[in-house]
């Protein structure tokens, strides 16, 4: 290769790198990710039965749609097993770092608002040593295996995104695998 050609190749190389430099700067922050597993044991469970509000809502509502009917037994109770739309359940959990449930890791709270077919939108927060992680998603009543989307967090989890997967873990415990991405730290 002639020197002139070599010089042109090198000029091209310099130009390519000079163009790549702002691209790297503008490519956006690479962000930290954390994988965290905690084991949860339910501490309290409270059910809010909104039967009267449901019945009232059939007759008095602002919409023209045909609202779901509330079917009552002869004793005045709703037919079938709930939870019914509008009911909510609050769960609190103690969290542990290990499957033996010996090392405390914090607490969690789930508020689940029931809709149709015993499915609920659950809003949760995990109060951990390094901060709070918020997660939300749909859970079917009685289901131990579900996944929630992480919507944010505080402190070490500031800007958190990702998801939380839940599976049953032995006696009366749940395993939560938190895959946290997008945090500032």
């Amino acid at each position, binding site marked *: 290769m002639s*020197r*002139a050609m*070599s*010089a042109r190749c*090198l*000029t091209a*190389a*310099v130009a390519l*790198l*000079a163009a*790549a*430099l702002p691209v*790297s*700067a503008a*490519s*956006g*922050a*690479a*962000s930290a990710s954390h994988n965290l597993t905690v084991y949860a044991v*339910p*501490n*309290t*469970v*409270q*059910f*809010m*039965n*909104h*039967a*009267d*509000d449901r019945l009232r809502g059939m007759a008095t509502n602002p919409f023209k749609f045909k609202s779901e009917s509330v079917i009552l037994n002869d004793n005045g*109770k709703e037919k079938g*097993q*709930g*939870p019914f739309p509008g*009911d*909510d*359940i*609050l769960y*609190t959990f103690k969290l542990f770092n290990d499957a033996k449930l010996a090392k405390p890791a914090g607490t969690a*709270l789930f*508020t689940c608002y029931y809709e149709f077919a015993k499915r609920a939108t659950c*809003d949760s*927060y995990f*109060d951990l040593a390094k901060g*709070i992680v*918020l997660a939300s998603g749909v859970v079917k*009543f009685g289901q131990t295996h579900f996944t929630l989307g992480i*919507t*944010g*967090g*505080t402190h070490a989890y*500031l*800007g958190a*995104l990702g998801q939380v997967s839940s599976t049953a873990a032995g006696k*009366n415990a749940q395993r939560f695998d938190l895959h946290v991405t*997008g945090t*500032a730290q």
Partner: protein
Amino acid sequence: MSSLEGVRRAAFIVAALVAVAGSAFVARAGAAPHRALTVYSVATGLQYINSADDSVRGKVNNPLDSTQNRLAPKHPGSQNGPNAGDIALYALKLFSDPTLKKPAGSAVYTCYFNYNEHALCQAYYKLAAGNTIVASGPIDFKKSGFTIVVTGGTKRYLGARGEAKVVPAAHNAQRIDFELLS
């Protein structure tokens, strides 16, 4: 300059650019776009939803199994609350200055109480020109300030993430400092 010198000079520039590009990439990995916004809020109304009857009904009429029913909270709660299942809805006006003279929008907090005067609150802040920020998180009503998580937004705040720190301010207001990562 001879061609050989020119080639060597170009080679040096290439090497320097590689070093700088690498540093920029590493530095960028630790940095994040950052926005801050401060507004002042004043509560203009509150509606409290006392779900005492639903809670009592739920103790005896529920689909939980016996193991879960044994985990029902032992303490019945207070007559006035806040008790688990109650809801507090706050309407707020927003201002861009601490003297509360320049309107900046409005906000609503919907707080679902759980235990020990804690609630999981969902908030939206409607700012000028249709810009909205949404946030949620746990709030301890025994404390005068709180920090909740910014989870999203629209228009100028599309995809927003970060946090909103709320502290008491003059004139019965609260100062809200938004720290947005994007």
